[in-house]
Every structure is written in structure tokens, then in C-alpha cells.
């Protein structure tokens, strides 16, 4: 989370970061109340995201953070989800994984939002016959320049705390080759819809230093977790 935050603040160019979670952990949406998760099993690692939406139990999943100049996405927030979700759906299809995007006939995310991100699929969510397959959320800032951080959680196996979550492994044997293919196709289709040329790079010295600072001063702090 600290790295994603640092990228939002400092990335010099559009950046896609793909990662996973160990230990498995719960992330809370920015507006969620810590007290609403007092029933989590003792010792559950928990962190607060800068992005919105409901909580996610991050188990075996392909997580991504996409940091972009706002001008690369539609200004309409809902339209930006459509663009990115269709890129992800196409990447999944390239790997033989079927899902669909709920269309405008479905209700938007319920108000107030569900406690768990995956509990109630809404308009534009990617779903299989078993439920929601992808969790998405954004943070939009104007400083230092108009930018968007788009978080995505593509579930490989249903997490222990949220077994109702749909997963790629529901209908597919998941091995290292499929994981790599999926990562490659995500990179390809994000680049395609955003008209970018992908290349691999490491975090810059500046990004790394800021991520460490944010980890120490925010993300590992109880006060940040309990800010609401």
C-alpha cells in the first residue's frame, strides 16, 4: 500500500505494479470504520487503503495498482471503470477464463457500501456465475498533478474470510504458467486501451524512499488504521 501511495505521489510516468500478498491480509476502504471489523479473527493483518470501496481479504490473488495521469482515463469515474474492466475481461478471455461485466441495467454500488467489497456485485463489476471476480477502487488527486490510482484485486482462490468470493480456480486449474500468462495479458491490454508502450522498470530511488517513509509514518501506524 505504501508503494502504491508513493507511486501516486511521485511516479514520473504511467505505472502498472503487479503484486500479491503475504501474509494474507485485510485492506479497508478509505471511508470504512475500523470498529466495523472488530470481529475479525485475532491477529489478522489489516491495513487501510487510500482507495475507496469495501474491505477485501487479500489471499491468493493477482493485485495491481495502476497510476495514471487523469487525462488518460475518461473524466467520468464510471466510464473509467468500464474502460479498465473491459481490458481485464479481455485479458481473462485470452487465458480462457470467462466472465462478464454487469451492464447499466444493474444497480450501482449500494449505499452505504457493503462491508466487504465482493459481497454485492454492482454495475460494471466483473462477475462469473458464482459472484464477483474482481475488486476495484480508485483514489483521484489534483496535486502534484491530476492523477488516478486504480487498485484491482483479481481473485485466484476464494479467501478464507470471504468464501463467497468468485475465483479463477473455481473453473480452472491454476498453475504458474497461467499466472504468468494472465499477468502478461493484463499488461498488454492495459497498454492497448491506454495507448501506451509497456516496458519493465524498477521503483526509482525517490519512489522507494517515499514508500519507506509512508510505511513507517502511516501504513504501520495504528492511528492511520483507526482514523475512522
Amino acid at each position, binding site marked *: 500500500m505504501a508503494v502504491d501511495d508513493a507511486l501516486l505521489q511521485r511516479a514520473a510516468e504511467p505505472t502498472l505494479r503487479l503484486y500479491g500478498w503475504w501474509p494474507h491480509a485485510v485492506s479497508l476502504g*478509505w471511508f470504512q470504520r475500523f470498529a466495523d471489523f472488530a470481529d475479525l479473527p485475532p491477529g489478522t493483518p489489516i491495513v487501510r487503503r487510500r482507495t*475507496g470501496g469495501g474491505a477485501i481479504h487479500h489471499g491468493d490473488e493477482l493485485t495491481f495498482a495502476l497510476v495514471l495521469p487523469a487525462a488518460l482515463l475518461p473524466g467520468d*469515474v464510471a466510464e473509467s471503470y468500464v474502460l479498465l474492466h473491459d481490458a481485464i475481461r479481455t485479458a481473462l478471455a485470452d487465458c480462457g477464463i470467462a466472465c462478464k461485466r454487469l451492464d447499466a441495467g444493474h444497480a*450501482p454500488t449500494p*449505499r452505504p457500501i457493503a462491508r466487504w467489497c465482493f459481497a454485492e456485485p454492482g454495475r460494471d463489476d466483473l462477475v462469473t456465475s458464482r459472484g464477483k471476480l474482481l475488486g*476495484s*477502487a*480508485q483514489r*483521484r488527486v489534483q*496535486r502534484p498533478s491530476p492523477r488516478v490510482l486504480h487498485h484491482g484485486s483479481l481473485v485466484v482462490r476464494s479467501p478464507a474470510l470471504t468464501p463467497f468470493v468468485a475465483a479463477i480456480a473455481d473453473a480452472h486449474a491454476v498453475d504458474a504458467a497461467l499466472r504468468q500468462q494472465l499477468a502478461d495479458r493484463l499488461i498488454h491490454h492495459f497498454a492497448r486501451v491506454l495507448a501506451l508502450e509497456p516496458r519493465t522498470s524498477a521503483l526509482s530511488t525517490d519512489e522507494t524512499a517515499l514508500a519507506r517513509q509512508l510505511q513507517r509514518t502511516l501504513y504501520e501506524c495504528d492511528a492511520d488504521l483507526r482514523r475512522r
Partner: protein
Amino acid sequence: MRPNDCKFLKSHEWCKIENGVATIGITDYAVSHLSDLVFLDLPKQGASVTVGESFGEIESVKAVSSLYSPVSGEVVAVNKELPDHLEWLGEGPFTKAWMLKVKVTAQSPDLMNTAAYEAHCTAEG
């Protein structure tokens, strides 16, 4: 119809300054592009806000957006009912959905009049 007595930031906040007090909110353009508003967080009365810095946050469609202040000064009033009536932002973004009143000590040099703001919205699409 956007009021002619307001000034605007590119980030889609408006302010109307009368007798040294700025009333601040977000525009109809911002509301229409956010859609499906869920949460709003505003500062408390007595807090300070600073030109160009975030004074609050709003969540829509799982997207958290920062709100930026067109002025600096002390918050002298907050629309406390607004977070529980986010539909007001669609019904009257320049009237009943005002967010803050701030005793102004400085204004953003980037404030635009209505005509310039409308040209900015057209350029953004």
C-alpha cells in the same frame, strides 16, 4: 446554469466571496462526473484551510477524490447536513449543497470566472 458571481478552480470547486467570507462547494460538472456519491468528509468549524490544499474528500463509485480549497482562512461554518444528504449535490450544487464558509485571508491566483470555467469544462469533455 452556472452562477456568474462564483469563481472556479480547474479541479471543479467553486467559491462565492461576500464580505470577506467565501462559500465553497463543488460544481455540477464535478457531480455529474463523480456520480453515485457515497461519502463526504468535511473539516470542522474552526479548522484552517489553505489555497490549493485538500479540505475534504468525497467517495463515489469506489473512487475517493480530494477536494481542493480556492481560498485560505478559517472555516466559520460547515454544511453539517450535507454528508447525510448527498443527493443535494445533484439538486443544487451552487445552493443547498454548499460545503464550507471560510473567512478569507488569501485567494487562489488560479480562480476562473464562469466563462473561463465553462471553456475549461468543454476542453475536458
